């Protein structure tokens, strides 16, 4: 199995910046390194030199590379207790607004999008919600739109769903064919997809809730701070910010910007 040296790794990061104008230098080394190693192997590029030559020669490879270096792979209804908290506390609070705007940035797969859409349906506020889903890779957006799972994967999702809502089934939200399960298209009705880089491009509106779970883990601390600042600016005063259960907002740095609403589920509220 190929293992990149630190010098090769840095050379690849440099090449991506030079040819694709994407700065990966503050991404978490171990996971990005595994991402590069996986791309080298799946595209039969043999070694670091092969990947560097591919990046330098092929502009169209950019979107594929950005999709494939992100290995993030979660199930629907990961952390059922967070989703119960959303259903029972956070979304009812938001429902007092005449409309609700929510942003899921850096979306790789559709799991958080589908899960949130289902919880919005179940709390009866789907119809007044506008859900923005952004990704730096067009291919990520296409796969979220496609909304298809294998049956095995569906079962894993359904097991999680039952931990969230023991007496109901996820089947109500899927259409089934012989080997596949597809999310019903009506669940994506109020979703606006944006092909943007959250660090460079302007997001078009301010929102009531940003769902950013398990994204900070792929960044080093300077980029974590930058990301939280960008997202904080796009939140309305009093808006909610949710991160992964083992992620932290740096103490001191954010005390003036956020109030902790639920420590266990990592739910924060933007101060005015």
């Amino acid at each position, binding site marked *: 199995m190929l293992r990149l040296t*630190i010098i090769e790794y840095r050379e690849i990061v440099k090449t991506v910046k030079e040819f694709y104008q994407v700065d990966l230098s503050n991404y978490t*080394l*171990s996971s990005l390194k*595994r991402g590069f190693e996986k791309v080298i192997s799946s595209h039969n590029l043999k070694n670091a030199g092969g990947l560097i030559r591919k990046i330098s020669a092929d502009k169209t490879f950019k979107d594929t590379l950005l999709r494939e270096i992100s290995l*993030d792979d979660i199930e629907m209804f990961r*952390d059922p207790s967070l989703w119960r908290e959303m259903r029972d506390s956070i979304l009812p609070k938001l429902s007092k607004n005449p409309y609700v705007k929510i942003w899921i940035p850096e979306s790789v797969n559709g799991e958080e999008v589908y899960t949130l859409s289902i919880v919005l349906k179940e709390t009866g506020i789907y119809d007044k919600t506008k859900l923005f889903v952004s990704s730096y890779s067009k291919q990520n957006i296409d796969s979220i739109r496609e909304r298809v799972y294998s049956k095995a994967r569906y079962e894993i999702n359904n097991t999680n769903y039952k931990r969230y809502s023991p007496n109901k089934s996820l089947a109500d939200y899927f259409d089934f064919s012989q080997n596949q399960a597809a999310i019903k298209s009506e669940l994506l009705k109020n979703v606006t997809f944006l092909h943007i880089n959250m660090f460079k491009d302007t997001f078009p509106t301010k929102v009531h809730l940003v769902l950013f779970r398990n994204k900070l883990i792929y960044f*080093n601390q300077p980029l974590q701070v930058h990301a939280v600042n960008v997202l904080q600016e796009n939140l309305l005063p009093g808006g909610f910010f949710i991160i992964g259960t*083992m992620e932290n907002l740096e103490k001191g740095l954010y005390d003036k910007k956020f109030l902790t609403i639920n420590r266990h589920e990592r739910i924060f509220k933007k101060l005015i």
Partner: protein
Amino acid sequence: MQTDKIKYVVIGGSAGSFQVISRILRSLPENYNKSVIMCLHRLKHLRSGFVEALETKSQLKIEEPFDKEHIKPGKVYLAPANYHLSIELGNNFSLSTEGPVNHSRPSIDITFDTAAYVFKQKMVGVLLSGANKDGAYGIKRIKESGGTTIVQDPAECQAKTMTSAALNLTKVDYVMSADQIISFLLKLNN
């Protein structure tokens, strides 16, 4: 073997390893001065309970590290549920939600591989009982990077698949019983 350089004890285990882990933790004194990092297969949907279960008889506090937390001597860490645990250059942990490796998240191979990359000869990797082959490749990486490798004797493992897979892949430094592993780890503290 230069065991005097060892500062990090990295332990992997799965089915049948709980009792051995408990015994190891019970034996380590309060003033143990190495960093102990454990990657154990566990139920993905139970975020709490495992640390408490391991802590009942341990003199040392056990922590599930947060993302980018700095690794300190004299601490015992446990990979949290449903995340991979990696070691970063600069001696920080990182967590990731990459897909399961060897059907496991956390995966022992990922923790061992990244530990080998960063700690090199300053670590000992210990692989215990388990029913799949996760950790076998990781042991190979630790050996190749100059670390010390210990595999629990398959003859006394409740599930032998994991340790046998490691021994088939790599000529490890020691095959030891649980008792021998404990005395090895205690000697490091002298």
